[in-house]
C-alpha cells in the first residue's frame, strides 16, 4: 500500500525514527522549559550542556574505563553540578534584569565551551561505542530498528514522565511552582527559594546532559553537536508554550515525527519545517499550543 507514492512501510519506519529524534527533542526542551519557567532565563547554553554530557561520558569511558551504564548516571550529575556552580557564580546576578543579559551570558558560555572542546578534541569528533548489550537490531516488520534507538525512546520517555510527575504531583514540585509564581511569599513559608532555583537549573542542565549521553553512540561526539540542535529545541519550547512542561514533551515528540516525514517527502525542507510550524502556531496561538495567555 502506498501513500503519496511512498510505501506505507517506509512511512512507518520514518514515524519510528521521528519518535527517536522526538525523544531527544523532548528531553532537551523539557529542561529548557523548566529553566525558563522558574528562572525566566533563556538558557542558550542548553546545546552546549548537551555536548558537555556527551563529552563527559566519552572522557569517563576513555580515561577512567567506566561502563556506559555508569556514565549514563554519572555524566549528567557532573554536568548538573557544573551547571549549578555556573548558576551560583554568574547567572544568579542577572535575575530581574532584562532577559537579554541572561541570553548573552549563556551564549558566551556556549562559545567558550565549544571553542575549548574544539581546540582540545578537533572538529570531526570522537568515536563512542554503543554499549555491548544494545548492539544489534530488531525487526519490527516494517523496519529494522537498532536496539539502541529503542532504548533511547524508552529511557527518554521514562525520564520525561518522571520529571513531569515530580513537578506536577509532589510537594517538592508544588514548592517549585509556588516559587515560580510568588517567590517572596514562598520564601516567607520557610522555603529556601534561591537554593530551589539553583537546584532547578541543575535539573534542567542535567536533563540536557542526559540527552547528550544518550546521543553519544548515535551522533558521534563532537563540539558542535549541540549547536545544531539548540535552535530546534527553542522552536519546540516556543511551539509548546514557554514554560509548559507537558507542552515541551508532547511538542518535542510531535515535531520529531513531523520532521521525519518531511525527510521522506521533501528532504531539503526538513531543516526548515520546524520553523514553519512555529510561525503557524505563533500566528494562530501566540502563547503556544499548551501555553496560557498571560493577562
Amino acid at each position, binding site marked *: 500500500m502506498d501513500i503519496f507514492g511512498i510505501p506505507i512501510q517506509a512511512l512507518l519506519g520514518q514515524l519510528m525514527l521521528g519518535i527517536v529524534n522526538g525523544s531527544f527533542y523532548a528531553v532537551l526542551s523539557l529542561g529548557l522549559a523548566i529553566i525558563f519557567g522558574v528562572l525566566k532565563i533563556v538558557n542558550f547554553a542548553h546545546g552546549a550542556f548537551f555536548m558537555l554530557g556527551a563529552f563527559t561520558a566519552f572522557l569517563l569511558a576513555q580515561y577512567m574505563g567506566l561502563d556506559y551504564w555508569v556514565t549514563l548516571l554519572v555524566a549528567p550529575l557532573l554536568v548538573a553540578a557544573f551547571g549549578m556552580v555556573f548558576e551560583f557564580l554568574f547567572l544568579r546576578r542577572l535575575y530581574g534584569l532584562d532577559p537579554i543579559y541572561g541570553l548573552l551570558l549563556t551564549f558566551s558560555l556556549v562559545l567558550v565551551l565549544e571553542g575549548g572542546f574544539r581546540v582540545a578534541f*578537533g*572538529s570531526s*569528533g570522537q*568515536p563512542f561505542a554503543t554499549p555491548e548489550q544494545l548492539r544489534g537490531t530488531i525487526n519490527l516488520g516494517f523496519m529494522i530498528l537498532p536496539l539502541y534507538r529503542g532504548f533511547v525512546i524508552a529511557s527518554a520517555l521514562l525520564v520525561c514522565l518522571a520529571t513531569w510527575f515530580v513537578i506536577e504531583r509532589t510537594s517538592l514540585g508544588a514548592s517549585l511552582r509556588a516559587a515560580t509564581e510568588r517567590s517572596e511569599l514562598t520564601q516567607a513559608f520557610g522555603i529556601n527559594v534561591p537554593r530551589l532555583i539553583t537546584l532547578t537549573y541543575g535539573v534542567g542542565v542535567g536533563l540536557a546532559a542526559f540527552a547528550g549521553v544518550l546521543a553519544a553512540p548515535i551522533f558521534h561526539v*563532537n563540539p558542535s553537536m549541540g549547536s545544531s540542535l539548540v535552535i530546534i529545541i527553542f522552536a519546540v519550547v516556543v511551539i509548546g508554550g514557554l514554560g509548559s512542561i507537558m507542552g515541551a514533551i508532547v511538542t518535542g515528540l510531535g515535531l520529531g515525527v513531523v520532521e521525519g516525514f518531511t*525527510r521522506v517527502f521533501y528532504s531539503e525542507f526538513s531543516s526548515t519545517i520546524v520553523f514553519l510550524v512555529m510561525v503557524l502556531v505563533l500566528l494562530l496561538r501566540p502563547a503556544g499550543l499548551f501555553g496560557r495567555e498571560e493577562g
Partner: protein
Amino acid sequence: MPAKHSFKTLALSSALLGLGGFTSAMASEGYSDGVVRIGVLTDMSGIYTDLSGEAAVEAVRMAVEDFGGEVDGVPIEVLHGDHRNRADTGASRAREWYNNDGVDMINDLSNSGVALAVAAVADELQRHAIVNSSSNIGLTNDYCSPFVTHYTYDAYSLAQGTGQSIVEDGGDTWFFLTVDFAFGIGLEEQVSQVVRNAGGQVVGAARHPLDTTDFSSYALQAQASGAEIIGIASTGADAINAINALAEFGVTPDQRPAALLLWYDDIVSLGLETAQGLMLTNAFYWDANDQTREFSQRFYERTGRMPNMAHAGNYSSTMHYLRAVEAAGTDDATAVSEKMRELEINDFFASGGYIRPNGRMVHDQYLWEVKSPEESEYDYDFLRLLATIPGEDAFQPLEESTCHLLNGN
C-alpha cells in the same frame, strides 16, 4: 629622432655604469610593496576545521620557512583568516586582503562554495588563488581563471578513483546521500556520470543540509532504494555521521557504503573498527614513501597530527608558487601565472606534476583501502594502496573542459 637617440644613450650608459645596483633595485621593484604576502583562508572554527584549519596555516608556514623566508631578498609574510564556511564572508575577506593588505596569493580554500566565490574575486582583481581543500570542478571549467589553480584533487578525480573502481568491482546500482551545496551536488554529478558511462544505474538520491547529525532517516531511504552502493557525497562530520548511521541500521552486507571524499582525519575519527574496508581516493598519504614520511614527521612535530592531502597540497602549492615568483623575478600575477604553468612540480607530493591552462594541476591520484584493526601495525598505520591512477586519467580531459581560456571555447 634625437630624443630617441639621447634616451637610448642614457639607458645604455646608466646600465653600464651601475649594472649591479640597477639589477638589485629591479629585483625589489618587481615586488609590490616589498613583501610577498600569502593568505591562508580556511575554516578555523567549523565543520571542516580538522580537514584544513590551523594545520593548513602551519603547512604554508613550513613551506615559507623551507623556502628560506624570502624570495630574491623580499620577505614572505603569511596571514590567515576564517571564512566560517560562508561564501560571502570568504569573498569579502579575500577582497579586503587583495585590495587593502597587499595579499598576493590566497591558499587552502576549504568549502567549494567559498572557493568558487574567492576564485571570482581573484579573477576580477587579478591576484592568485590556489584551491587545495575543495573539489568543485567549476573552478577549472566555467569559472576558470589564469589566476586560479586547483591543486590537490577535484570531484572528477574522486569519481574516477573511488567511483570507477567500485563500478568495475560490480557495484552498479547507486543511491546517493548528498550534502546539499556546491560540493556535494558537484560530486554526485561526477560520480553519476562515471556510473552511467560504465553501464551502471543511479536509482536515487537524498539531499541533506550541511552539518546534519541525524542520518537515520536517510539510511532508511538508502535501504529502501535497494541500491547496491550507497554513495556518500559529503565529507568530514557529515560523512562520519552517515557512515555510522548506515552501519547502525545494518545497511551492509547486501549494500555497501562508498565514501566519495574521505579524509585521513575522518578515519581517525571513525576508528578502524567502523572504517575498515572503505575505499578512498586521496592524493597523498603520510606513509607512502620516505619523502612523504620525512615531511609528515616534521609536520607531526609542529602540529601533533599527521598531514592529510590538503595539508600536503598547501605545502607543495606554496612552494610551487614561490618558485614561480622567484623564476619570474616579480610577484606580478600574470608573470607568476605563466611561470606556474611552465614549471614542473617534483616533490614529495607530486612527481612530474604540471598545471594546465585551465588551472588544473595534473598529478597522480591513489586509491586506498582502510586497513582492519588487526592489519594496522603502528600508530596512524591506516591505509593500504590499491591502485595508482595516472594524472592524465584522474583528471578531466582538457577537451571536455568548458574553460574560456582554452582554444575553441
